[in-house]
């Protein structure tokens, strides 16, 4: 009877353990009001409506991440710079906000809440890239002071690497700082920035004094975050070789210009993967160790419970007749073993249930429409040259694809930005791992607009006498 009771309790606790995986309400998506949704989407590009809807549904936890993705998608459209600037300004506000001691930061360090509960700020390489795109928007607008401030702000985000040689080594930033200073006519400042760039990239040629167009070519897909428990790992998805820039000058027909091959200014995956361990990893590792210990205790207790249950259900010695006293003693021993089995089963299952609720996984949300590399070239081009030809080359030098890019001129300089490889418009409206797996799998459906039906008041009719 005691064994049966223990088994029933075991079933109860097993069920409790199975349902123990914690997902906080913060990690789920809200269902915003239809009127609010349609008002919010009214000035957004139609191809990004589902993405913006997700931004609204996922709220502040993923706001910076969603604004980074959508800012880049809007930036790549070329005619949505104001929207892109608003989105990146908001993302940078999220990055620059100091989270000193908020309820979320406290919860994220708790045993039963995962790191993913925190508001997303991104890893340093993602933060730097947000400043990079904001800076490019300023360049497109001819605001060179703020462009330089953005690139400078980006470099500061790269100071958190574990190993000293990888701290603040994002070479792209001082290069662009120098370019912005050059465009603003501040040559002394530009020389200072280029000196810093040279510290990281000794062989790269510097822009010439008369150069007035910056060509930036991005290739490959974003670094992918994976987690092997408490440690965050990064994987390279795809990278391409390089790019050659050509153009036709309308003042010199028949003599195509050849700017040569764009240089590798930054390997984003390299930046992402050399960040090293984070201070928070130690906390996650502590949680993982605690989880493992609780799991082991659970295993040991369950093994003990099985052994005790065996003793409890064994029929005793089959040989010889037993006296009444012996039978009573055996029954008492079995009852005691059953009690022990039940107790150990309870301890084991409680321990397993507790272990299953400990959240030691690293946060693996990531900016998925970033590129893998940034290549660049500066040119001296007459105002008549409005577009450039870009030939994307394989590592062997074969032309993989050709494309054209417009030069957007503002102030003294122009910017030509083009992207090869992964699409800048994210295929999935939800960022990877931004919500629990069950929600990630559900389709994104925008609620239909609320149609206000106005009914006219009933017409007063004179009742005719019967």
């Amino acid at each position, binding site marked *: 009877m005691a064994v049966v009771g223990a088994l*029933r309790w075991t*079933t*109860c606790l097993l*069920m409790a353990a199975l349902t123990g995986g914690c997902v*906080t309400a913060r990690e789920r998506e809200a269902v915003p009001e239809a009127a609010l949704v349609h008002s919010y989407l009214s000035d957004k590009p139609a191809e990004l409506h589902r993405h913006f809807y997700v931004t609204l549904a996922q709220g502040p936890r993923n706001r910076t991440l969603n604004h980074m993705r959508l800012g880049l998608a809007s930036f790549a459209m070329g005619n949505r710079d104001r929207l892109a600037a608003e989105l990146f300004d908001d993302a940078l506000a999220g990055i620059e906000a100091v989270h000193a001691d908020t309820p979320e930061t406290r919860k994220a360090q708790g045993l039963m*809440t995962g790191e993913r509960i925190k508001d997303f700020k991104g890893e340093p390489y993602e933060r730097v890239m947000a400043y990079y795109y*904001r800076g490019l928007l300023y360049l497109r607008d001819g605001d060179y002071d703020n462009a330089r*401030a953005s690139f400078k702000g980006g470099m500061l985000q790269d100071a958190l690497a574990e190993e000293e040689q990888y701290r603040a080594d994002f070479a792209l930033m001082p290069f662009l700082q120098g370019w912005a200073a050059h465009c603003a006519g501040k040559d002394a400042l530009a020389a200072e920035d280029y000196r810093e760039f040279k510290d990281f990239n000794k062989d790269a040629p510097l822009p010439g004094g008369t150069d007035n167009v910056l060509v930036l070519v991005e290739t490959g897909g974003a670094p992918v975050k994976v987690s092997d428990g408490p440690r965050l790992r990064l994987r390279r998805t795809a990278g391409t070789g390089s790019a050659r820039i050509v153009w036709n000058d309308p003042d010199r027909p028949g003599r195509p210009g050849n700017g040569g091959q764009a240089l590798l200014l930054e390997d984003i995956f390299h930046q992402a993967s050399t960040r090293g361990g984070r201070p928070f990893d130690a906390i996650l590792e502590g949680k993982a160790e605690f989880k493992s210990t609780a799991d082991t205790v659970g295993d040991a207790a369950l093994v003990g419970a099985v052994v005790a249950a065996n003793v409890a259900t064994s029929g005793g010695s089959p040989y010889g007749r037993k006296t009444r006293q012996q039978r009573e003693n055996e029954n008492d021993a079995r009852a005691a073993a059953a009690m022990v089995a039940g107790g150990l089963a309870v301890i084991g299952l409680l321990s397993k249930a507790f272990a299953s609720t400990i959240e030691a996984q690293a946060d693996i949300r990531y900016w998925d429409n970033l590129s893998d590399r940034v290549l660049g070239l500066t040119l001296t081009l007459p105002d008549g040259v409005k577009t450039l030809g870009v030939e994307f080359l394989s590592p062997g030098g074969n032309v993989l694809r050709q494309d054209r890019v417009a030069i957007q001129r503002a102030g003294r300089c122009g910017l030509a930005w083009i992207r090869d490889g992964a699409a800048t418009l994210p295929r999935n409206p939800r960022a990877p791992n931004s919500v629990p797996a069950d929600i990630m799998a559900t389709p994104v459906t925008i609620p239909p607009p609320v149609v206000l039906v106005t009914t006219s008041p009933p017409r007063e009719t004179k009742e005719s006498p019967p």
Partner: protein
Amino acid sequence: MRRTHAAIAVIVAGLSLAACQQVDNTAGAPTVYIDPATSGPVKGVGIESQDIVGMTDQMMRDMLSQPRLTNAATPPSVIIDSEYFHNESSSRLNKNTITDRLRIGLNRAAAGRMQFVGRHYADMVAKERELKRQGTVDRGGLPAARAQKGGDYRLGGRITSLDSRDPRSGAMQRYSQIVFEMIDLETSEIVWSGIYEFAKSAQDDIIYR
């Protein structure tokens, strides 16, 4: 008996789930007006509203105490805009926020001791003058001027910063320096200078380092 155990199982499972569903029931905050001269609830290490209010007030008082600017027999014409006010810091900002507040504050406090030239409106004025001279519009009530007003002095300046970050603690520190200078537009003499400086530091929580 079986029913009792089933009920217990359901209750335990329910309680486990209920414990996990930590509903974010933080009360929303209604819109409140914040004094721009004080530090608000959202803070960073960059230039914020209280810095702009503080620095423009200080510069204004300092300029008004300069006899060369405010006690001249003929009130000087002054141009205060962001054209020659450069931002070389790591703070993104709209420089007009600073120069506009300074110009307006000075204009109100100077009470005619200085005259302010709206050079940033030069296009607007040129268009209207052209329309008047073409006869498209009448001459207005005031006497016609031979040309737009020239400036005697113009504001120049620079915002710079020095940033440092501790990679271990994640603490960030920014020293910001804002320099204002009034330049004689005939001789390039600097007739007045003012400096405003501050340093801020902040540290993010360990989960963001």
